[in-house]
């Protein structure tokens, strides 16, 4: 029988056996030890009970028992903890699985080399090989494990919540949570109380994201181009003034704005009345509240695009403009055919990021209007609520965790799809080396 078959079979049987057969003692012992440690640890910790917990989400809830005059707490299963522990067990199992697969692959490769008459590496040679060829993997191993447990695990956890009935009044530890499959998703679109709000809020979220992105982007570029005009004086001053709104924490400036736009006492309306107009119901009328949000968002968002655009403008070669001058182009033509394409090319990926960010623009809505004015036809949402602020209200004010998680997933899907599609369509993606 061929050596590669024997060594592979042995490694499949137990980690490290194939390596030992290949006379790679040190490597074999390391794999063997890892395998034994994995089995020992999983039996000591009770890996199977964790995995079972992930499936059942607990069998016995906590409860209070009256003993004589005193009530005692009898601890039971906590579905949420079981879920997290189960996930950790599953991920650890995955890690062991990866090592196991590596072990088989290694046994196969070395066996094949021996069949071909090449002597297997000794341990020092293997180490050197790792150092030369696989150093990157070695360095990345620890971060990968950390990312797996600290980044991926919470993500999976919050996604899984969407498939449970974790919502007031089913609150652990006094209650057990159950898997309910896609019923939350179905409810969201089929039950009128939910779907009405969901589609209304979704529509406004999309409109908002488009408006907010377009206004800040166009505004930012226009201002940058204006400031960079050779005839403009005090460039430093203009730049600084425009950047200031971005430098103040939006938490504070938005709360101030909220008072400034107060219909009755806000300075904005006071000035308008002073000039002779009637005041505008900035934050109390559904339409005006939305307009106000877009305006305020421009104030905060324009500086970012402006700085970016200024940066890009300085990189555009002067001779392009000189050539255009020679050809007799006017300023608008120069802007259209030279400035705009160059700026667009460099900032398009940022544009998509801003769009995604605006879909999730929690701060502006939450601090300016908090979703108000209220909409009596909506379930826990107002006229200006975005999906993300609705999610926040559902989770933190109403304890509707499973629905909040469903909405979280939907937001993710929307943003991910839009971003991928539009990013792949930008020229900077297709022609990476246009400038060079």
């Amino acid at each position, binding site marked *: 029988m061929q050596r590669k078959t024997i060594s592979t079979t042995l490694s499949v049987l137990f980690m490290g056996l194939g390596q030992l057969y290949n006379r790679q003692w040190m490597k074999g012992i390391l794999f063997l030890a890892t395998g034994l440690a994995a089995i020992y640890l999983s039996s000591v910790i009770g890996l199977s009970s*964790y995995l079972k917990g992930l499936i059942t989400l607990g069998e016995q809830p906590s409860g209070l028992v009256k003993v004589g005059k*005193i009530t005692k*707490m009898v601890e039971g299963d906590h579905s949420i903890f079981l879920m997290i522990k189960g996930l950790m067990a599953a991920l650890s199992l995955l890690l062991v699985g990866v090592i196991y697969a590596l072990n088989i692959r290694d046994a196969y490769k070395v066996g094949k080399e021996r069949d071909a008459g090449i002597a297997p590496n000794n341990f020092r040679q293997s180490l050197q090989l790792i150092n030369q060829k696989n150093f990157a993997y070695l360095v990345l191993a620890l971060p990968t494990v950390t990312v797996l447990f600290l980044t991926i695990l919470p993500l999976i956890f919050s996604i899984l919540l969407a498939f449970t009935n974790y919502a007031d009044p089913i609150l652990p530890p006094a209650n057990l949570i159950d898997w309910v499959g896609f019923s939350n998703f179905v409810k969201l679109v089929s039950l009128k109380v939910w779907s009405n709000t969901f589609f209304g809020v979704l529509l406004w979220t999309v409109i908002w994201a488009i408006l907010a992105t377009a206004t800040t982007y166009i505004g930012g570029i226009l201002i940058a181009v204006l400031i960079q005009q050779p005839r403009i004086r005090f460039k430093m001053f203009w730049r600084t003034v425009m950047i200031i709104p971005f430098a103040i924490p939006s938490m504070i400036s938005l709360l101030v704005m909220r008072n400034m736009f107060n219909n*009755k006492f806000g300075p904005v309306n006071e000035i308008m009345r002073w000039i002779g107009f009637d005041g505008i119901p900035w934050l109390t009328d559904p339409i005006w509240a939305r307009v106000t949000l877009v305006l305020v968002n421009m104030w905060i968002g324009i500086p970012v695009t402006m700085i970016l655009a200024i940066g890009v403008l300085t990189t555009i070669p002067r001779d392009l403009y000189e050539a255009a001058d020679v050809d007799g182009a006017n300023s608008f033509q120069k802007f259209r055919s030279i400035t705009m394409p160059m700026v667009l090319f460099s900032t398009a990926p940022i544009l998509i990021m801003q769009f995604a960010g605006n879909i999730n623009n929690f701060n502006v809505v939450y601090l300016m209007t908090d979703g108000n004015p209220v909409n009596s036809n909506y379930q826990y949402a107002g006229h200006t609520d975005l999906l993300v602020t609705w999610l926040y209200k559902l989770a*933190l004010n109403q304890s509707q965790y499973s629905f909040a998680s469903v909405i979280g997933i939907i937001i993710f899907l929307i943003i991910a799809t839009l971003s991928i599609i539009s990013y792949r369509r930008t020229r900077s993606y297709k022609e990476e080396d246009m400038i060079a």
Partner: protein
Amino acid sequence: MRLKQKAKLRQWVMGLVSVVLVLSLSACGGSNGGNSSPNSSQPSNTSDTPPASTENEEEYLPEPGAKLTVWESQEQVEYMEKIAAEFEKQYGVPVKLEVVAGGDQGTRLATDGPSKLAADVLTMPHDQIAQAVKAGLLLPNDLFEDETRAVMEDSAIKAVSYDGVLYGYPKSVETYAMYYNKDIFPEAPKTWDEIISFAETYTDTKQNKYAIMWEFVGYYTYPFVSTLGGYFFGNDNTDLTDIGLNNEGAVQGFELLKSLKKILPMNAGDVSYDVKTQLFQEGKLALNIDGPWSIAAFKDKVNFGVAPLPAMSNGEVSHSFSGVKAYFVNSYTEYPIASRLFSNFAANKENQLLNYQMTGAIPANKEAGEDPTIKNDPIISGFFEQFSHSTPMPTIGEINAVWDPLQAAFRTIWDDPKADVKTTLDTMVDTIKTSISSK
């Protein structure tokens, strides 16, 4: 308020992160996997375990080696330190203080309680207990039940009970009343009619002078609902099938509310807490409906007094919503007896009076309320008087289905002169019903 909610969000995230971390630690330490131990001790068959001697009431002493952790908000830390020191002197149990903002304690308990990171004793406003009780996070006040029921205000007892079980150890009460500017009123107006006729001469939108203001949210709207016979839910806010928000009394109340627009001509959304506070400080607002938490903002700035809310057409003082703050025992505490002893000790009459002296909290204890220091305090006694006409905010979770629709209806009636009161209220009740049935 917003800041608080923001902090709540952060708190929640931190809680989740700490849960994950603790779990990863405990998993490494090889603790047994969750669901093996409790199967052996089902709640129903543990009743025979404790020794019979515990039947004797006098035997309840703190667990040997007990030490307690208590959550207290920043404003009350100094006061709590005194109590903790006194408790340690009397019972020999050391008490450690951790500063956690009042509104956050309930949320943190939900995550930190089961992971054994929460304090043994904490303070919550009573409207947060429903969630905590449903999640099984609080131990009932059983040991001192009779004592608590005997010495505390009845509405405070009702407020800290859920489903007939007493959970809290009431600490202080709060409700809103009417702040009046003494430079404008030698004596506070008693009825809405008085206020309306006063406003006709006083209100001047050009100069931002207004007769009366209150925040346009459900909490402060309650007097218009309840005083003439409306109510949230029937049978002391427990019967969900009986919603009294569109009955005749409520309609009358909202009609009165609608008629007030002429003395407060602005959209509901524009009366914000900041605006109202500033106007009152500047002396441009004659009457301000607000709670005791605003006393500090007005002290030394305005010459003010506090009086009960104005009476409506039936002559009865308006009914307000009240809140009760109480100590609660975390059900995951290691030292349940010591925690109970501490809660009861901290909520006793002397300590409530101390709390009043140090932080201005209104006592929930009946005798403490009768104390001359409180009787002679014109501000606190104003609130205390209104408190006797108040209903505790409902503790049932379904109350959450009411606030938003109520506010929406309230603002529609106020902002839109064409809106019909009865139809608007009917729509609101429909919304509340669907919202409750969809849970």
